[in-house]
């Protein structure tokens, strides 16, 4: 496909382990800070054993800050927090235009469902129903839409860890086809016992702080958060005289079709996602100034993704980093959070650190960016997100 007119990014909002807003996040990046630490917000036998990237606000604090949000799931609270920031920041009246909300999540209201299950398991007549009423992924999106006053179009995507990029791409396509004028797109996922134990059962959680793209890497740390962009059509930009932050220039969604959880050794799915995204944007590999890697820190992902990057970009590869060393892997939210980071890289002409890197993966030899660096020329940024089930997505943002 081709993009007829530009799909502009008018606003961005983010919350993660390294900050409750885009400004706080930039401050953390500037100081090369990590948000990884011990579990503090819920009980688990893994507390003190498995490090995680928690958002530094409890449910109660979030509910009070957002106002009137009692009994709302953590995934929705985080989503509302970031989506509000994005909308305020965009300065577009979402009720005036044909506006859609496309959100991604993998756990939905699981944090509350877990509370429900503790009582429900022993007696199916027990458990507070208000704890399961928001279980569905789509309910999370409803809660965010209702908060923002969006009635037109809502959609939720769950393609595991690539979900958010697909949400942003669907939004861009709906604007491109003239069906919507404004789309708030991204994703949100809270840290839950369900995902913590799930990834633990796969034995891919590192008991130390994760080391993406390092030879000594041995797994990921889970994180949580939300990231949303406000996408607008050319017409909306003109009529509102908006000074936008960048635009979506290309994206692609492919499937590795290799294994249920593992990526193919040569990263055939990720290679083709990056290649197709480049083709759509009309750019050459050499035009990319920075890659925000998927870079989970597992043996398999980083080798597979690194192999694909090395094959596509050759020896003169752009600056690249995995910001998951700072935030942890935020699953369905990661593509949204990292889309906001990509836009920040363009807006502030900077790149972000891949913390704890010491030695390159011997098979591929890629050396990521180790420190925050500003004063660069950043015109085109690629962001990768891959997930279980072979879902691979890549997206390119460009400077206006």
């Amino acid at each position: 496909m081709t993009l007829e007119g530009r799909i502009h990014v008018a606003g961005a909002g983010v919350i993660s382990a390294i900050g409750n807003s885009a400004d706080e996040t930039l401050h953390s990046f500037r100081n090369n800070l990590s948000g990884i630490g011990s579990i503090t917000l819920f009980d688990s036998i893994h507390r003190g054993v498995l490090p995680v990237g928690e958002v530094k606000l409890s449910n109660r604090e979030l509910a009070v800050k957002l106002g009137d949000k009692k009994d709302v799931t953590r995934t929705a609270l985080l989503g509302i927090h970031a989506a509000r920031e994005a909308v305020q920041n965009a300065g577009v009246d979402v009720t005036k235009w044909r506006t859609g909300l496309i959100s991604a999540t993998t756990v939905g209201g699981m944090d509350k469902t877990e509370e429900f299950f503790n009582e429900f398991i022993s007696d199916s007549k027990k458990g507070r129903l208000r704890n399961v009423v928001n279980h569905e992924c789509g309910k999370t999106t409803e809660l965010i839409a209702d908060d923002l006053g969006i009635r037109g179009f809502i959609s939720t995507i769950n393609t595991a860890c690539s979900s958010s990029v697909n949400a942003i791409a669907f939004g861009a396509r709906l604007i491109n086809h003239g069906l919507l004028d404004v789309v708030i797109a991204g994703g949100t996922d809270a840290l839950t016992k369900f995902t913590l134990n799930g990834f633990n059962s796969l034995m891919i959680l590192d008991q130390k702080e994760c080391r993406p793209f390092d030879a000594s890497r041995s797994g990921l740390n889970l994180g949580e958060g939300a990231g949303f962009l406000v996408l607008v059509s050319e017409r909306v930009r003109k009529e509102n005289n908006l000074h936008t932050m960048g635009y979506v220039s290309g994206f692609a969604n492919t499937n590795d079709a290799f294994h249920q959880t593992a990526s193919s050794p040569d990263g055939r799915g990720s290679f083709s996602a990056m290649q197709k995204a480049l083709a759509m944007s009309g750019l050459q590999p050499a035009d990319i100034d920075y890659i925000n890697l998927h870079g989970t820190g597992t043996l398999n992902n980083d080798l597979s993704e690194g192999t694909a990057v090395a094959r596509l970009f050759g020896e003169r590869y752009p600056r690249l980093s995995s910001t998951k060393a700072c935030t942890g892997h935020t699953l369905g939210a990661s593509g949204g959070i990292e889309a906001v980071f990509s836009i920040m890289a363009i807006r502030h002409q900077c790149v972000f650190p891949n913390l704890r890197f010491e030695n390159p993966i011997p098979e591929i030899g890629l050396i990521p960016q180790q420190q925050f660096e500003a004063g660069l020329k950043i015109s085109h940024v690629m962001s990768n997100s891959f997930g279980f089930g072979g879902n691979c997505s890549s997206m390119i943002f460009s400077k206006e």
Partner: protein
Amino acid sequence: MEQLMADLKKQIIEALNLKHLKPEDIGDEQSLFVEGLGLDSIDALELIVLLQQQYNIKMANPQDGPQIFKSVKTMAEYIRANQPV
């Protein structure tokens, strides 16, 4: 050892839902993975859970899997060597 291997075969069939197999279909030294029974890395994780649930053995490093889960015999040997008394 014979009994342990016979038990293991039943447990493997049960845990991995290998309904098309009977215990006697699995040779003691037959390869469990690719060219043998055709098991994959998810099955390897399930076998780690099996060791924990049935034999109380906690395998810390999944990287050791291929060596230990080569065959029913290597699994049995590993259990003998590591089972808590």
